[in-house]
């Protein structure tokens, strides 16, 4: 076989290979479409879950949201090392020195549209669901904690010690980073996050949860009519959690 014909032969073989791989790509493509159809009942990109915190209604000293979060997600108080215990939501007290104005507000994962934690994650464990909820895939989280450093809201915690009494719907374990999930297990059942429910039950109604994309939802209406702000709006992360009265 001359070099010329050999090259021809290889070229033909390459073409056949390409055609083969094209077909192979077509099969997963079809598979992907069928998956997308199957996901119609899952997280939808038409929805963007968000929360509005009215700080004028949030009471200093009230911890109902934090307690409800701990109960729902089985976050134990810790093992005698408070600096290491998980905080999915925390209460923050703000004081303005000049005027003496005092504020109290819950701070948690802000579920950014452009989440820095997802940007820096080396394994793809940090991800944003189609409906805007930012989560950690513990199956592939290696516990490097880059996301904890990247988060401007200090929203993430690292689990340092073995856990046992998890909620079956909220798997949590040692060696992974975790943060507020907006109670994704409840949202997927059509319920509200535990903190929002507790705040309403407590008579405060300082937290409002809903779909930011739906103009008919209460949260979208409130955001359209009252001045609200994003924490660290200068970072242009477009958080899904907004605050009123700060």
């Amino acid at each position, binding site marked *: 076989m001359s070099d010329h014909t050999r090259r021809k032969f290889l070229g033909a073989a390459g073409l056949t290979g390409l055609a083969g791989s094209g077909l192979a790509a077509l099969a997963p493509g079809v598979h992907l479409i069928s998956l997308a159809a199957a996901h119609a009942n899952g997280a939808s990109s038409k929805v963007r879950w968000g929360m509005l915190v009215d700080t004028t209604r949030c009471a200093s000293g009230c911890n109902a949201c934090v307690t409800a979060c701990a109960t729902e*997600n*089985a976050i134990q108080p810790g093992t005698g090392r408070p600096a290491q215990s998980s905080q999915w939501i925390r209460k923050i007290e703000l004081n303005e020195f000049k005027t003496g104005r005092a504020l109290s507000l819950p701070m948690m994962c802000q579920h950014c549209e452009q989440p820095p934690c997802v940007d820096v994650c080396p394994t793809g464990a940090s991800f944003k669901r189609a409906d805007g909820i930012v989560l950690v*895939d513990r*199956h592939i989280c290696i516990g490097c904690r880059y996301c904890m450093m990247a988060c401007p809201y200090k929203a993430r915690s690292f689990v340092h010690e073995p856990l046992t009494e998890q909620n079956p*719907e909220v798997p949590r374990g040692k060696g992974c980073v975790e943060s507020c999930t907006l109670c994704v297990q409840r949202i997927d*059942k059509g*319920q509200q996050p535990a903190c929002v429910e507790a705040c309403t039950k407590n008579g405060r109604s300082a937290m409002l949860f809903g779909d930011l994309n739906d103009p008919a939802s209460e949260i979208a209406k409130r955001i359209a009519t009252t001045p609200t702000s994003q924490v660290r709006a200068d970072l242009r992360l477009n958080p899904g959690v907004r605050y009123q009265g700060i």
Partner: protein
Amino acid sequence: MRSNTFGWLLATAIAAFSSVTWAEVPVPKPAVTIENPGECVAPLEVIRRTHMDLLKHQRDKTLRYGEHGAKIKLNGCIDCHASKKTGSVLGSQENFCQGCHAYVAVKLDCFECHQPKNGMVKSAGAKP
């Protein structure tokens, strides 16, 4: 000739030693109790060989796409197979997951995060 004899001796010694080893450390078959016998989500031979793949496939769909209500899910395994004594799939060699995994010496990572007990209150104000 000398080396040949030595070779024979060595072979005999190895044979004797290994036969003793085999005889003395039998690995008992797992005595797994199926608490809720009946239809599994797939035929036994499929489940035995591919349960990890089935679960892995489903976990990504549930976590990343929020797809619930699948036929194959870890909580489903636990609901059917948790021991009636301890309420768990772990804890002793008689319990479903641990029994087999100990027998085949495959590390079982699922339950470092997932709850191995059934009957735990699920969501809506779950008690830790």
